[in-house]
């Protein structure tokens, strides 16, 4: 087991309101060949944490403290020029909405090839063959390289995004809610594909989601975030079966189960704060 990424004491706040912390002293680690899920509700800071790792925070936000150690190097202070060398090459990224992440006027083959040319200098027939093999790996017929994004279904577009993100065989893949916009049967296929690619390529995967069902399917380790803080983290079985923090317990109680055996319990925020039921 090699440690791929370690985030220590990461704190993020708006430039205009430095005292209003959006991510508070977050620390966790990710190993090669493993999946760490960050799970939380909207506003928990899960996406900001992922954006910070890639150095993609908006100008209005600043990292007040913390280190982001990727393959032994602290990349937290790196400028854009330095980060561009590893983004897409050593760190792949997939986002929620495949349609807005793809350029509508370029063929998907061209878009998959871009990072191969940029980072590895591939051209011509070699590039074409590599694009075809990537499409095959994600389950799309290679001749679709000449298709435009609008000619593909939502699931196929997300497969194209995955092909782009793994093109340079990155050591780490960051996936921010990659299946949230997809139908449930397509979601199951995409999760399976990501899990297989992770194992085959020994990537570390940082997977952002709000869905505990997805966590159960894909995670090795879980980081639960609530209002900018990590409230609990650990191996997936431990966190899902024996949650320690009251928020994790309460959040799990809100998730309807497919068997309909468990009564739904909304979160009692007063109890969370004081430990006394309202």
């Amino acid at each position: 087991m090699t440690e791929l990424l370690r985030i220590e004491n990461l704190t993020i706040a708006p430039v205009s309101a430095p005292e209003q912390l959006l991510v508070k002293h977050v620390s966790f680690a990710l190993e090669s060949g493993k999946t760490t899920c960050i799970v939380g509700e909207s506003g928990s800071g899960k996406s900001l944490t992922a954006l910070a790792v890639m150095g993609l925070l908006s100008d209005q936000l600043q990292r007040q403290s913390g280190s982001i150690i990727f393959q032994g190097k602290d990349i937290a202070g790196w400028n854009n020029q330095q980060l561009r060398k590893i983004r897409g090459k050593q760190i792949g990224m997939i986002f929620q909405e495949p349609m807005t992440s793809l350029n509508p006027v370029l063929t998907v083959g061209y878009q998959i090839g871009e990072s191969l040319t940029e980072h590895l200098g591939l051209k011509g027939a070699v590039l074409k063959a590599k694009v075809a093999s990537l499409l095959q790996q994600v389950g799309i017929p290679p001749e679709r390289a000449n298709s435009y994004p609008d000619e593909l279904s939502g699931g196929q577009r997300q497969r194209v995004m995955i092909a782009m993100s793994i093109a340079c065989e990155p050591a780490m893949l960051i996936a921010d809610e990659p299946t949230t916009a997809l139908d449930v049967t397509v979601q199951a296929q995409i999760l399976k594909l990501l899990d297989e690619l992770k194992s085959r390529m020994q990537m570390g995967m940082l997977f952002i989601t709000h869905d505990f069902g997805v966590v159960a399917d894909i995670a090795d380790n879980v980081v639960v975030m609530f209002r900018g803080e990590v409230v609990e983290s650990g191996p997936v079985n431990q966190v899902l079966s024996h949650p320690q923090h009251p928020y994790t317990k309460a959040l799990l109680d809100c998730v309807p189960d497919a068997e309909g055996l468990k009564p739904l319990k909304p979160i009692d925020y007063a109890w969370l704060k004081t430990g006394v039921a309202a």
Partner: protein
Amino acid sequence: MSMAPDKHILLARGLNKTYSQRSGRFGFGTNKVKALDDVSIALRAGSTLAVVGESGSGKSTLARCLLQLQPLDSGEVMFQGNNLASLSGHALRQERRHLQMIFQDPFASLNPRMKVRDIVGEGLLIHEIGNPREQLEKVSRILERVGLSAGDLNKYPHEFSGGQRQRIGIARALVLEPKVVVCDEPVSALDVSIQAQILLLLKSLQQEMALSYIFISHDLRVVRHIADDIAVMHKGRIVEQGKVAEVYAAPNQDYTRNLLNSIPGRKSLAA
């Protein structure tokens, strides 16, 4: 269906709806899409019928066609002895009072320029129910019932969170004391903790106000908790329907089985 017909509050038979789509590179061709293909459903009084399916299955078209918000090509929707599909104008409006809808996106479905009192009270005004004083009373009462307060009467939608806005949407639908409420993905835009609150609220309101729900959803975990009966839609057709517990335990159709097996967290990926 073996249920006695008198127990059904809403019966839809043989619904058909076709959309024409432009096709081809420059849109000169047309492409017919059957959004509803001979769809029949029956809603038992006081119960919840879930209509589930993936995107493009026709479930939202069904919701709108049931309420005659969109015209049907053919078929009948029987409610209180009337075929809604044959009504129009005043007669239809009178029936609509008893048929209300709750929408998915609480951000898009509330007019940002209207105060909560006007959004919730609009239906009372349209249906000329009570004088202004009584109307305000009704609006205050339903707001409190859905977990908001009379202090929210003069606020605008943007002053509320997503969950609170969905409560406003529920109050707007229920202030008219309807008999049937069509809920179109009412919790899919909400965080899971808020989702649980809204589902429990819908359930308790159902008992209190003797409501019957048609619950449109793509989320089979939510459906398991809220619905009594289920109709599974695929490409405009209902491929399977029955009691929720029975369909989940032993689906008859491959499509349903595949859908149930895709529920995240239900079985591990390796299986």
